[in-house]
């Protein structure tokens, strides 16, 4: 990799890494204690219950 690409690569990851870390941590912290998949059609949920 050329020096310019190496620097661009590093700068990109120095920006991206904290963003990735933050979004993952936020998602885990705010994860519902009992996750419910509300994308499932109600009928299927009722049927399973």
């Amino acid at each position, binding site marked *: 990799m050329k020096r310019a690409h190496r620097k661009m*690569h590093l700068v990109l990851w*120095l920006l991206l*890494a904290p963003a990735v870390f933050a979004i993952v941590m936020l998602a*885990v912290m*705010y994860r519902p204690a009992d996750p419910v998949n509300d994308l499932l059609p109600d009928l299927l949920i009722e049927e399973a219950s």
Partner: protein
Amino acid sequence: MSHDYKAVQWTPFKKRFDLWMLGGIAGYLVVFVAVSLASPPAGEAFTPIQILMRATGTLAFLMLTFILCIGPLARLTDRFKPFLYNRRHLGVATFIIALIHAALVLLWYHGFSDVNPLVSLFVSNPRYDSLAGFPFESLGFVALLIMFLMAATSHDFYNANLGPGLWKALHMGVYIAYGLLVAHIALGAIQFEKNPLYVTALCAGSLSVAGLHVFTGLASLRPANRAVLEGWLKVADIAEMQDSRAKIVRPVSGEAIAVFLDGDQVSAVSNICRHQGGPLGEGKIVDGCITCPWHGFQYRMEDGQSPPPFTEKIATYETRIVDGTVYVNPQPNAPGTPQAPSPIGADA
């Protein structure tokens, strides 16, 4: 736009690799579907299409995570260098898996209304100001568009016509796609999947990719400042060098230099392959030629020229061995200039 380009040739290794890759993909999907059907989460029931959605989604994430780990891991250990040769095929396969995942989602969740499925994807959930209810599907869609751009230009035709510099810069977009993919999963599956494996895979995968890239990126910027001979750079002691392999030296200015040990002599060339800017110093000497770890482009040790009929040339450098230590002159010769190697045992 010129049509003059040289496609990377298929080799038995590439064919074997692709067979293993396809077998692995099929195996993962079969096992995922079988396990999901056999043991559904308590209180939930999934249709086969929904299970396939999860199988392709998780597989695409795991494959892209692995692909993005290959580069930095290959810098840390030789074990991952064979994967560099086939990263392109892995990337295209990942895009196809992600495309299947997206098609299933569009069909299942947005395909049964009067609204165009693509419009429905962006407007059916307008909670863009919510963390838990964010319309995460839109993030995945944008990531898929970027991956399409990468997959569509993953051919030597585009590399030759865009130029290695622009091509490489364009393909760094995959990092943005990965960031969007992580957000897509974090705000999507992590919020409603009961299985803790989703959280574990996301945390381990994304943090590994980010950590490896930052670590190896910082390490690669360290300049070689151990000049002993005036204006020359110390490479390594001969005993530290591995036959047919290189040590990479990074001058304060200019491009990195790959210094190879070939039997009882030492030669130095530019570390940058003319094909796609691959790191030649991470390759090895095959049939007397320096071979790029990315796509197998070759250069002669003695003059940095590709063997006929190829015409690529890279810069050569003067080397010297003093008291068992290898040095290199960081001033490059013009690409393709013959440069006598330094024989071991004839210290200056």
